[in-house]
């Protein structure tokens, strides 16, 4: 059971035009930098990207936007880059905005084989349009459907050759839920180790959810908002 591929180019083999991808990360934190670069180089287009955010002009999913490879974004918060705004206003880019918790839950449910579930988020708002409403304990809920993707691409801190993953800090974010929801899940990691090196008791994503894994290179890990305090 060896899921290791050589690099990002090999990892994204099989991704073709018009597929749906999930990409882990929150802002620029915990994004699969290597696979995004490989996608940019691949010229694959017409992608539907499910990702909490859409990167910035010159990093993250912003690079795919610059390259006109994205047809649709499914996100909770976007527009931190000018190209995104331009493409959306011109109608080139379709955007589906989803409450962040519903997005996370819809990915988790997709991976967990729960096709639909009720949540209170969005009731009474435009998010509720066209959705079934049902009351539980007197409180209105929307029926939300699960999300899956042709490929889910996640970034972890450490992984083993069987696909078991560990994330570091808040770079975890959407990665575990999306790892569950890919028909094929690709994991890029900062450090790839042999089976047995990770403690079975402390693995965040069990390898069963991961089909391909590789050790990435040259992680930039860009900080969007460096905020610091001064030493007294």
């Amino acid at each position: 059971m060896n899921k290791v591929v050589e690099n990002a180019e090999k990892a994204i083999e099989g991704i073709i035009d018009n597929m749906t991808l999930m990409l882990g990360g929150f802002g620029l934190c915990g994004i699969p930098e290597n696979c995004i670069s490989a996608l940019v180089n691949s010229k694959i287009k017409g992608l539907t990207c499910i990702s909490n955010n859409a990167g910035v002009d010159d990093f993250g999913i912003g690079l795919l936007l610059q390259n006109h490879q994205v047809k649709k974004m499914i996100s909770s918060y976007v527009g931190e880059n000018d190209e995104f705004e331009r493409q959306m206003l011109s109608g080139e880019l379709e955007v589906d905005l989803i409450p962040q918790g519903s997005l996370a839950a819809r990915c988790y449910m997709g991976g967990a084989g729960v096709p639909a579930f009720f949540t209170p988020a969005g009731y009474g708002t435009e998010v509720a349009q066209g959705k079934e409403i049902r009351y539980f304990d007197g409180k209105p809920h929307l029926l939300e459907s699960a999300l899956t993707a042709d490929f889910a691409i996640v970034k972890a801190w450490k992984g083993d050759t069987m696909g078991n993953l560990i994330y570091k800090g808040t770079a975890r974010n959407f990665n575990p839920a999306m790892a569950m929801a890919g028909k094929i899940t690709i994991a890029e990691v900062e450090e790839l180790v042999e089976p047995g090196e990770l403690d079975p008791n402390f693995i965040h994503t069990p390898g069963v959810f991961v089909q391909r894994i590789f050790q990435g290179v040259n992680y930039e890990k860009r900080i969007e908002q460096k905020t610091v305090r001064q030493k007294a």
Partner: protein
Amino acid sequence: MLDKKGIAKRIAQELRNGWYVNLGIGIPTLVANYVPENINVVFQSENGILGMGPFPYDGEEDADMINAGKQTITALPGAVIFDSATSFAMIRGKHIQLTVLGAMEVSQNGDIANWKIPGKMVKGMGGAMDLVASADNIIVAMMHTNKRGISKLLKACTLPITGVKCVKKVVTNLAVLDITPDGFKLVERAPGVTVAEIQEATEGKLIVEGEIPEMVLE
């Protein structure tokens, strides 16, 4: 009249020992700076941390440790990291005792609008719709009027709403108001602000019963 720090200070008085608290971006973030000395609360950031601490010292920032505003942060002893699905399980499951949010508009029945202005670029609701739909205790922190002097406390929201009948309390530069079935009930005046001034700045129904005390801020 309060400035943004004053609003944050007043909201900090609402904190109770042992609460888990989610602070939105903007004025709400400042609340963390004014937690009373004898009160222990744990701050949640919905991107996946409980026990968020202060910003790191310069040079000690870690790209893998950010808050929901994408700012670099630290973790306090007893902190815990989790994924987004678990984070919103906490929020949706009502395990967070207080949510403090900014708003563009609040209506007298507790509706809130804070995510979208028609005609302007829409950036998305982020976690706001989840937070307002699930939290039992939501305080809105905002200026009483907008930059053009128009009231943000309305009979009904004019902007696309984020959630219905969810806000419990509003703290503005002018006043503290509870949302009641009958409208905005004036609870406290900001220092030096008169009831008449608050009435003038409130488009929604304002309920004034008896003497309205002035806020006490250290």
